[in-house]
């Protein structure tokens, strides 16, 4: 069983920077776990602690039910793909992939077989004799993956492996990584700050913020039921509209059964529907359009509540006939509303 357990893991860097606090979650065998969060939230730190490249200040990390806190990276049976690939520049592609196996005294025929197999899977068979500098970014990326695959590790670790590729290649590689992970069935931890990448790759999504875990769960669950304001704003693009409602309410927004205490109400752009003025609905807003973004299949209307105030995004399918400056009314269903406590940022159970 190649599951990964983290128990109350904390990290304080020399110099007193507290990068991680009480991180605890389990990754089941074979799962694809994605760590996502804004820059500086500690994703890389956590990944590097699992890899053994960073010491563990407190808590325990175990891989396959074996505590690895005091083990060297090479003894943890993990393989890592770095953002800049970190290929050995003076070694051929073949040697790059074979190096780790040679160091482990794997028999030669076995090395040959594994490298050829990985090259076949990744379609880099014709590149084996080249040096890394003779490869394109995408090819280097594949070699880096190959180096990880040949080891047949318990856990794959990826630190933003696609961020150096152009947008199109990134999508293509994203699909391939996912497919590869499925076929190999190797437990994986993947770091990214791209929420779309996170949503599409993950079996299990871990949203981090400022060294804490905000929420752990399957991507759709995080999308449909974000537990905190932060997750609500982070997952989904364009992000969820988060409107603070003080006791008196705000102009341009009508909410049935409005809670008395101040709340933050969240509603995704795609859950709005345009409606004629005065349509009765659980939630209705009236806004003046300030910008229109057409992306083909859909259109995003940016507006300000009641002509001023905070910005709201409304998605409409297809092309929009509205003009900038026009006033529109949009409504949403009750079950699509999310309520959060403005003080703690946590989800409120409002019926």
């Amino acid at each position, binding site marked *: 069983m190649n599951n990964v357990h983290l128990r109350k893991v904390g990290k304080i860097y020399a110099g007193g920077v507290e990068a991680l606090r009480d991180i605890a979650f389990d990754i089941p065998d074979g799962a694809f776990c994605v760590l996502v969060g804004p820059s500086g939230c500690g994703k890389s730190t956590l990944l590097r602690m699992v890899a*053994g490249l960073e010491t563990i200040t407190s808590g325990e990390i175990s891989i396959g039910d074996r505590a690895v806190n005091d083990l060297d990276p090479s003894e943890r049976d993990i393989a890592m793909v770095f953002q800049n690939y*970190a290929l*050995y520049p*003076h070694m051929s592609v073949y040697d790059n992939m074979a190096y780790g196996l040679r160091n482990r005294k794997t028999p030669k025929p076995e090395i040959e077989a594994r490298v050829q197999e990985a090259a076949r899977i990744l379609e880099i068979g014709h590149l084996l004799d080249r040096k890394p500098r003779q490869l394109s970014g995408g090819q280097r990326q594949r070699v880096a993956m190959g180096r990880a695959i040949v080891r047949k590790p318990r856990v794959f670790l990826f630190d933003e492996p696609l961020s150096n590729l152009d947008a199109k290649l990134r999508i293509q590689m994203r699909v391939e990584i996912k497919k590869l992970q499925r076929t190999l069935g190797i437990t994986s931890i993947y770091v990214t700050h791209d929420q779309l990448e996170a949503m599409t790759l993950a079996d299990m999504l871990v949203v981090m913020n400022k060294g804490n875990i905000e929420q752990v769960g399957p991507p759709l669950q995080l999308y449909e039921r974000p537990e905190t304001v932060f997750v609500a704003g982070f997952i989904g693009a364009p992000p969820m509209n988060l409107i603070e409602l003080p006791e008196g309410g705000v102009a341009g927004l009508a909410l049935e059964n409005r809670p008395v205490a101040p709340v933050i109400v969240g509603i995704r752009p795609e859950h709005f529907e345009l409606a004629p003025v005065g349509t009765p609905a659980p939630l209705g807003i009236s806004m003046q359009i300030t910008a229109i973004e057409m992306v083909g299949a859909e259109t995003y209307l940016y507006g300000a509540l009641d002509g001023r105030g905070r910005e709201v995004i409304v998605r409409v399918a297809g092309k929009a006939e509205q003009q900038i400056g026009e006033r529109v009314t949009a409504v949403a269903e009750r079950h699509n509303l999310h309520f959060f406590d403005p003080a703690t940022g946590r989800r409120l159970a409002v019926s």
Partner: protein
Amino acid sequence: MVQRRSLLDIVPHFILALGVIIIAFPVYIAFVASTWDAATISNGQMPLWPGPHFLENYYRTIFIGTAKTTREPVGIMMLNSFVMAMCIAIGKIAISLISAFAVVYFRFPFRMAAFWTIFITLMLPVEVRIYPTYKIVADLRLLDTYAGLTIPLIASATATLLFRQFFMTVPDELVEASRIDGAGPMKFFVDTLVPLSITSVAAMFVIQFIYGWNQYLWPLLITTSDNMQTIVIGIKKMIVTQDALTEWQIAMATAVLAMLPPVIVVVAMQKLFVKGLTETEK
């Protein structure tokens, strides 16, 4: 336009050619002098073209040497110089690579102190510390040995600094990838760091070989027996003040021979050397 261009091309070429002539002419004269007999040279009427004694002079220089002054064939001197230059170049590179590796990749107490100590030795070339160094070498009974000739010259801050700068540009991820691939520190050093440094090593080798080959003061102090003479000292000894005794054709042949190994090293290493200065392969 075309006119102007070709004129602009000609001027620098002309200046370059002039420079080459000015530098190469004395070398040519030395070569010419090494192919005539002593009488032709000393009567002050030496021709500007090579004479008939090439083989004879060089044979005598390499295998017999001058009759009175050096009492050793130049072949032996060349061997001494070569051993000294190689030991200094290789020794310096080996020590510098290792010390730069230690300073960049390990956290040990007084790391920076160690680094600055190395740095300060830049200010202490042999000429400055000549007396204490001589005393130590003498006390260790290393006079007239290759060890005494080379070891005091090997400790080198310049090469350490160069390699330190280079190592600091090697991405950390490479170390980390090595660690994950199961390579310990020394394996990383041998398998990754040294191969990556190969062009810097070549550049350093050229510079240090020539530095070692051209040593004069130190070998002069440290060697007394004839069979430990280096070629640079040999040349000096051949040229005696009473002009009549100087066997100029031998001295000039020696000078030409003394030039050859550094030239060969430069030419052989040139490709790597230029690559080391221009290409960064990381």
